[in-house]
């Protein structure tokens, strides 16, 4: 700065301009202002987003809302509730029981990750977490089926209850597969759709099998 020492600005040169913060060009998502809102608003916003996705799964139309704003809260809640309900089926010995909580949890999450990797390796354009989000949310019909199965098993465990459970599980399995295919199939190259849909089918089939073969203590 040595060369600037002898530069002087005479005091009567007017310096013009405005130093105001333009209000209109605040960032479009206005997330910076959510720090001041009450906690209830924050939680309700997330809950509403999750709820909206559940509704999307129930009536699967080709909307991009599920894909765009992915979140993993819904899948986590569904997975934990399903694993809790499936836990500790009847066991004669230590080895012959139904799947434990950790096994169900690992199957669901590891299965979803493998299917996502598979679809990405085959050239899909969907992002990793979007795919996990869709696969997780589409477990919802199967969780409903599990609930119904447990209620039916409370009433009795004969042949009629088995037939009811079979019908419910098969219907929900079909619903899950169709819902997830409706969301995921568009992002795949057209001559590989079958290759991508088959693992999803296998995944929901395994979960349905675990639900159907659940027998209480």
């Amino acid at each position: 700065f040595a060369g600037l020492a002898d530069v002087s600005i005479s005091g009567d040169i007017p310096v013009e301009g405005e130093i105001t913060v333009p209000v209109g060009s605040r960032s479009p998502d206005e997330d910076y202002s959510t720090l001041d809102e009450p906690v209830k608003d924050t939680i309700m916003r997330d809950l509403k987003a999750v709820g909206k996705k559940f509704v999307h799964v129930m009536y699967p139309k080709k909307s991009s809302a599920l894909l765009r704003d992915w979140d993993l809260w819904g899948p986590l809640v569904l997975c934990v509730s399903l694993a809790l309900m499936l836990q500790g089926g009847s066991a004669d010995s230590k080895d012959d029981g139904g799947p434990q909580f950790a096994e169900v949890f690992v199957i669901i999450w590891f299965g979803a990750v493998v299917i996502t990797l598979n679809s990405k390796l085959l050239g899909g354009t969907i992002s990793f977490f979007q795919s996990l989000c869709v696969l997780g949310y589409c477990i919802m019909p199967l969780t409903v089926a599990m609930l119904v199965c447990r209620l039916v098993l409370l009433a009795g465990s004969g042949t009629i209850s088995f037939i009811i459970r079979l019908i419910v599980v098969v219907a929900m399995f079909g619903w899950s597969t169709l819902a997830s295919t409706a969301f995921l199939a568009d992002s795949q190259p057209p001559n590989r759709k079958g290759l991508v849909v088959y693992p999803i089918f296998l995944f929901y089939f395994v979960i349905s099998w675990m639900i159907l073969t659940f027998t209480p203590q």
Partner: protein
Amino acid sequence: IACLVIYLFAEFDDAANLLAANPDATTISIDEPEIPKNQHGRLQEPRREEDDELLGTDDSDKTELLAGQKKSAPFWTFDYYQTFFDVDTYQVLDRIKGSVFPVPGKNFVRLYIRSNPDLYGPFWICATLVFTIAVSGNLSNFFIHLGKPTYHYVPQFRKVSIAATAIYAYAWLVPLALWGFLMWRNSKVMNIVSYSFLEIVCVYGYSLFVYIPTAILWIIPQKVVRWVLMIFSLCLSGSVLVMTFWPAVRDDNRRIALATVGTIVLFHALLAVGCL
């Protein structure tokens, strides 16, 4: 001068991109039709006439060349692994058909894989087989004991873990051992058709497909039916393997060739008996 600097940086960027895309560019000139020798250790040997009928077409030279230039992404990028999944639905279905109906005299690798081995088929066929075995084992247990008043149904979930370990170990370790063995024999006897590791994994994976309907039919609780089914499926998938590997070992010492093929069949039979 600033423009020159920017131009030089752009040049460096281009050069870096070129090198990243084709790391062998410095060692091989693109004009010569030469296969890089370090691609999966495959040897380009002069073919004999007897091999031609098994090799399918005469332009397998070109397909090998294309394959050699295809897998040029470095192995730590995602694109490298994407090259192993470069199949369409109809191709996978064709390969499965080829494994279920083996045509005598036609080599599965040359006819269907043609230097495009994929990992989709082996992986998902093994996964399906694991779950099919677990489900059908459970169901067959249920039907055997149906009607007995003391029977209490249990879903045997341990079967899944055991089956998964066994099948994936078979589908990966046995090809590894076989590939190592073939490479070792290659160094001693020159004129052997050799396969890359992925092609061997591919053949083993697709040959396991026959066991899936067999496992489903295994639910029938009749012993005779089960044994007949098992021997039938063993013959089918074993023949695919034998026809694939016979050209690779027949130039070798007679006894070693027979021993190799015999070991292949033996392991396959062990898997069948163990799983079913």
